[in-house]
Structures are given as C-alpha cells and as structure tokens.
C-alpha cells in the first residue's frame, strides 16, 4: 500500500478500517542469504538498501525486542554533517543528502526538518577552530556559514549575550542540519524493507554464532538456529556483548548518555543550538517540548540510566546559555547505551571471521549516520568491498596508526 493523499481520502470513506499493517510478522526461515543482527535504525536501513539498491531481498533482520526499541528511539533526533576530518566529512555529508530524499525514497513521512544547527563559540581561539571546521565542511561538500554575535542575535535574541564568563562571540551555522522524527525512521525503513521482501523478525534474540574453521555460517537464536551466507552484526550499544559470543574483542567501551525533555512550551527555539563552553545542546520538538542533552556520564555502563551529577552539569549549561529556561519543568529524562570507540569514530568492516561483518562504535552520533551507515554496510555486504565513503572505518585501523580522532583525545573512550 502506497501512502498518498488519495489513499487518505479513500480510507476515510472506508472509515479507516482498510489500513494494512506496515510490515508483516513472518516466522524465521531456516536459511537467508544475509542475516542482519539488530533491528535498530542502522540494521533496518541496511536491509532497505540491500533490497532496493543491491537487489538482495532474501534477508532477515533479527531483533531481540521490538524494532526501534533501542537507541533509534532514545536519541535527540539531530542530523548534521559538521565534521572536520577527511575520513568522516564526506561520509556524514552523504548521510545528510540521503536524509534530504529519505521520505520520497521510503514513501513515509519521517518529518525531516532542516531547521539549521548552530554551534556557538565564546572565545577567539574557538572562533579560529570553527573557521577551520567550516572550511573543512565546505571542502567535503557540506554547507557552513560563520556568524558573528549580531548574526546570532538576529536568530536567537533570547540567549545570554552578556554572560561575563562565556560571552557569545558568534556561531558556525549549518543551515541544512536539523531534526528528524526518530521513531518514523525505524518504521519507514522497516516498512520499505518489508515491501521489498525482507523478513523482519522481532522477539528473536541471537544467543551465539555457528563458527567452524574460521567461517561463520549461522546464528543460534531464541527461536531456533538460522543459517546464512553472511551475518551482519549491527547492535551499537551491545556490540561488545554480541561479538564476545564470536570470540572477538573490540576497541569499544559502553557508556551511558542521558537526554531530557521539558514540558510542552510555545514555539521558542526554531533550530538546534549547541553551547560551546559547556556540555549542552537543545532543540524544540514539534509538540513543544525542549529536547536537550549533554555529555556522557563518563564511566562504563549498561544501565540505561545515568547519575544526577550529569543532570546538574547539563542544566547548568542550559542556564548559562539561556537563563529563561530555568522555570521550564523537566517532563522526562532517560539514558541510552553508546558504543564509545577508541577514537570517537565508527566501524563498518569485515571481521577476522569469514562471513561475519560488523557495524558499530557510533559513539553518540549514530542517529544522523543512519542512512549512510545502512547504505555503506549494504555495499560492503553485497560486494565484499568497503563503500568508498566508509573506507576509513576499519576495525584494525589502530594497529596501523590510522585513527580518525576528531577531538584528538587519544585512546580514552569517555573523552570522545
């Protein structure tokens, strides 16, 4: 069933009884060409592009819970491509371009809203760094505009420009950045993949891998064994746990990142703003809630909940930037588990075991990468060659000194 205006009209006359379910609920088959472990945004996107772009539809997506129950439903929905390094910039710009045509591609309203993302700077040194970043973005094909304080004040007159400690000197604006309705991304990719013949199997936990003589030929699941020619793991947040079942250790630690939503307010913040002098970023959802967050808690965790020290730190950042939000009440807060990698950049690669592929290490930037991650992972699975834009995301890059360290923080995952 295609979604369009005529369909809405026709269904209205049928008292909306004729809508079909958006994807099937199939029983697992004994064999697939490709098994995708993990029904999050990246896994479902991989299935969609495998079927639609590469014509491989004998594919199943295995999900432990229900699709979209992990980080694709727990993030703060921001899309952007404001990266500095050559290994990252073109990849994320490719992702942003895919976002721009996503809804037509999927025939699904994902509420892609290019409302602009503004990174504020508060010192001359920070301005220099942002000029450099903006130039790197332009070279990677992205868009970037440098604003002085008066330019920022035209967009956001409500910020605290007189802050003695952290005066706002200006900002780097990416007008094409913005937000996307995160759940709709999972649903849209799932519906499209399903329509192209992919089996989406929920409540099916992968318990182990069938590996003989260095070749992976299937998985053990809570719903029985399934054979496959290629097994593609895509479970960021739980990567170390799942890959340990295949005997692999990863350059990844799991950390908790918190996010917050305030009560619904009238339109206040039209775009996305990041505070340059502390850990705070904010946007406003279409329902009116202020959606904001900050830094990871800083210690390894699988708990999906964080500590109050970080709540205080994030709220202090918010108060320093825009004291007016002090009277807004917090409606919800939660935590998600991030794959924090050793250089802050992700992996899309084969593993040392034939037939076993790995996608993970997205740190706290996985959501914006969803389309490009799916597209490049599908390319790797279909052709056995890395996609040209994801060629830097190798698992063995630390052994060869080819890390992609945007922050220059070194092998310390909680600092990225």
């Amino acid at each position: 069933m295609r979604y369009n205006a005529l369909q809405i009209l026709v269904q209205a006359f049928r008292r909306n009884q004729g809508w079909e379910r958006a994807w099937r609920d199939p029983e697992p088959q004994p064999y697939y060409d490709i098994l995708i472990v993990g029904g999050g945004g990246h896994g479902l996107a991989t299935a969609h592009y495998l079927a639609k772009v590469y014509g491989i539809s004998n594919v199943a997506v295995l999900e432990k819970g229900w699709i979209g129950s992990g980080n694709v439903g727990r993030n703060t929905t921001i899309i952007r491509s404001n990266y500095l390094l050559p290994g990252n910039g073109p990849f994320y710009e490719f992702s942003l371009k895919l976002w721009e045509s996503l809804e037509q591609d999927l025939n699904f309203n994902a509420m892609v809203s290019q409302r602009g993302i503004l990174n504020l700077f508060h010192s001359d040194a920070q301005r220099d760094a942002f000029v450099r970043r903006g130039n790197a973005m332009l070279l990677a094909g992205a868009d970037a505009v440098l604003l002085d304080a008066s330019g920022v004040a035209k967009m956001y007159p409500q910020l605290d420009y007189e802050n003695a400690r952290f005066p706002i000197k200006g900002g780097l604006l990416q007008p094409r950045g913005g937000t996307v309705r995160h759940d709709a991304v999972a649903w849209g990719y799932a519906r499209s993949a399903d329509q192209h013949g992919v089996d989406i199997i929920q409540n099916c936990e992968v318990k182990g891998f069938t590996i003989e003589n260095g070749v992976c030929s299937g998985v053990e699941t809570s719903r029985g064994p399934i054979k496959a020619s290629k097994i593609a793991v895509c479970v960021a947040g739980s990567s170390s746990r799942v890959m340990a079942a295949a005997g692999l250790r990863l350059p990844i630690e799991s950390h908790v990142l918190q996010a917050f939503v305030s009560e619904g307010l009238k339109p206040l913040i039209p775009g996305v703003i990041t505070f340059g002098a502390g850990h705070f970023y904010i946007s406003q959802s279409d329902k009116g809630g202020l959606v904001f967050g900050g830094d990871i808690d800083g210690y390894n965790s699988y708990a999906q909940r964080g500590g109050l020290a970080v709540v205080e730190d994030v709220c202090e950042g918010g108060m320093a930037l825009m004291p007016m939000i002090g009277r807004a009440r917090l409606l919800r807060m939660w935590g998600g588990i991030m794959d924090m990698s050793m250089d802050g950049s992700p992996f899309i690669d084969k593993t040392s075991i034939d037939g076993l592929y790995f996608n993970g290490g997205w740190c706290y930037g996985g959501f914006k990468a969803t389309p490009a991650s799916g597209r490049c992972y599908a390319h790797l699975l279909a052709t056995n060659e890395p996609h040209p834009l994801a060629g830097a995301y190798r698992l063995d890059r630390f052994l060869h000194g080819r890390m992609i360290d945007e922050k220059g923080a070194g092998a310390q995952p909680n600092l990225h």
Partner: protein
Amino acid sequence: MIIDHPLLGPRDASEFTYLGDAALLDRPDTALLDFADGADGADRADGAAANAIRQFHDYLYLRDNIAGQTRELWFHEAGDGSWLVVTRDTVTHEIAKVEMARDVALAKKHNDEAK
C-alpha cells in the same frame, strides 16, 4: 555513585576521574614475554618480541567491556590523588570492593615473582 575510599571513607564519584579497565595495570613487558614464551618469528633489533606491536595494540585499544562485574581504575583527582581499583557492576552500578591500585599492583608483582 558513592565510592568507599580505603583511606578517606565514602566519597562522591564526581570527585574521581575514570580511566577504565583495571587490566591497564598489566602493561605488556614484551622483552620479558619474548624470553618466557619463545620468540614467534624473528626478534626485533630493539630486543622486543616480534609481535610487540600487536601486544601493545591489544593492551591499549581492545577491551572486554563486560556487562556485569568489572574491575576498573578510578583516580581521586579532586581528593588525595590516589589511584583506586573499584570492583563495580556495570548493569546495576553497585560497587562491591574498593582497593588502592598500588596494593593491587604490588600484590600482583609479588605473585608473579613467586611463580
């Protein structure tokens, strides 16, 4: 989280800086391993084992990243500047044991020498 410091008593975790897995105390001694295990391939000119780079890569970059009880290094940065080995559950955040990293490292050294 409250970390029960062996010398100072219970302190808030925000006073500490987190380094990671306490396995980082066991820095590979590639020259020693070379003698103990026999060289796999040719020795390097600097006297280190042929697989020294691989050993240091695994030490520095790979993690077990366990969901459950782990031992990890915390630095009391806003306190007495001591390094602690904290045994903590990454699923519940429950802390089972706190030791001085110095004691842990010395005990390991004595054990290794006894072998």
